[in-house]
């Protein structure tokens, strides 16, 4: 039971990581951009959400409903104002630009919110759990997992079945050729980043509910997203989801072995995948 419980808790944790990883997989898949601000944007959105809850008295679901469009708007702006200028075959300019922005964001958040850790009240939902036979499952992690699954499925369907998704995949395959058939790459890129950061609205709300956030937390969230994406295979949507599950399970089982070993176990699995199968466990999907 010990191990089955570990796996169940790992899958639930993976749900949160999937919400981090989706946007990163999307941005890498379409633009070959590794957005270093990814984790900082989670923290920024979470802090905005907590402030909204405190100042305007919003409940957690109202916070979620507000953070998603705010995230989408931030993503659009980020792409238009910065990333469209540095996107290209060479991944280095975007890496440097987002690295610089990451530091600036962290400092700005420190000024606005101070270094305190904060969290978002879920109105008791954090403590609720249901029992599946002998295993207790938290209601909040279950909701997170369901949201992650729906987001992944929705994004995958969007990529495969919609006009917008086709234009994204075309731009990802050959952006110049996409422009030659009438796709405006700047719009497509801005929409991709808007979706990526919009999804972080979910991640931010749930992270703030289940744990705490502080302005300097971003790099940790970034690492988890990054590891999930690498494990799953760069740029693949369901691969990122599966990578997040593997990361979550590795951490949960590691934690069962020894509480201090949890995070490290995740890193070790990540390194093992990188060494044995650098293209990721799942081939890139079309």
């Amino acid at each position, binding site marked *: 039971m010990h191990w089955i419980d570990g796996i169940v808790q790992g899958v639930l944790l993976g749900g949160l990581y999937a919400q981090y990883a989706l946007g990163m997989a999307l941005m890498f898949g379409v633009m070959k951009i590794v957005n270093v601000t990814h984790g900082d944007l989670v923290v920024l959105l979470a802090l905005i959400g907590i402030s909204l809850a405190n100042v305007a008295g919003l409940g957690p679901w109202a916070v979620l409903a507000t953070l998603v469009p705010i995230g989408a708007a931030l993503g659009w702006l980020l792409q238009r104002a910065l990333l469209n200028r540095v996107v290209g075959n060479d991944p280095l300019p975007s890496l440097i630009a987002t690295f610089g922005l990451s530091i600036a964001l962290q400092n700005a958040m420190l000024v606005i919110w101070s270094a305190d850790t904060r969290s978002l009240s879920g109105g008791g939902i954090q403590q609720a759990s249901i029992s599946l036979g002998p295993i207790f499952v938290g209601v909040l992690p279950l909701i997170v997992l369901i949201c992650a699954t729906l987001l992944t499925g929705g994004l995958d369907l969007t990529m495969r079945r919609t*006009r917008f998704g*086709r*234009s994204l*995949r*075309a731009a990802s*395959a*050959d952006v*110049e*050729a*996409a*422009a*030659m*058939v*009438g*796709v*405006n*790459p700047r719009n497509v890129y801005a929409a991709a980043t808007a979706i990526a950061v919009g999804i972080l609205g979910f991640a931010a709300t749930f992270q703030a509910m289940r744990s705490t956030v502080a302005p300097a937390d971003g790099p940790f969230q970034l690492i988890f997203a990054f590891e999930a994406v690498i494990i799953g295979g760069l740029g693949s949507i369901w691969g990122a989801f599966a990578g997040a599950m593997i990361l979550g399970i590795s951490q949960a089982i590691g934690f069962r072995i020894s509480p201090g070993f949890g995070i490290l176990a995740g890193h070790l699995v990540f390194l093992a995948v990188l060494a044995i199968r650098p293209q990721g466990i799942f081939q*890139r*999907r*079309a």
Partner: protein
Amino acid sequence: MTPLLSTHGLIAGYGDMRALHGIDLTVNSGETVALIGANGAGKSTLLRAIMGLLPVAPEMIRLDGQPVGGRAPHRMVREGLAIVPEGRRLFTGMSVEENLRVASEHAAKPVAEPWTLERVFALFPILREKARTPVENLSGGQQQMVSIGRGLLAQPRILLCDEISLGLAPKVVREIYAALPEITANGTALVLVEQDVGLAQRASHRLYCLLEGRVTLHGTSGEISRDAISAAYFGASHALD
């Protein structure tokens, strides 16, 4: 009469390297214009510059007499230009139908008789059978048909074709060239870059020969002599200019 497309002293290149040194070219509605010249003469550069893929000054390219040079490629599509690029440049990982749909979903305002997936499949029946096949699994000829179909679904008034016969078996080349009259039937103009000079001459109304980024010969395809072409092609007369 204002030509559909014209270039005026068109200069373009890559960084400091100038590949085109002042090209004047006109294309009229419904006309097929061939562009020949040795490797490296600047044919692809010319098509790319017209399509908006290389920076040029506004006055250097005119559509219906209006300056449009330097606009982004997706805006050129809206103006009625489309290109079948060198190397086909299909969207790998996507099916034949998806490749075609990306084009039809971002097309210019349809011309009189708009191109539809149905019409493209009628033009190249093999593509209907392969509609769900990822494009990377097609033969070279089939890929070229997808690339042409994609160009057509942009609903162009002018279709720029860069070496559509390159690397294809003679039978496939005939098949593709047999489709061209159907394309021009509704008034769409064609600019054909073609290595096979005989084929270029037969398939076009007028012909331009490029050498080292300059036009060394142009005229009515049926009236130009072989000697004149080979002189323009290899540069014998170029030295006398």
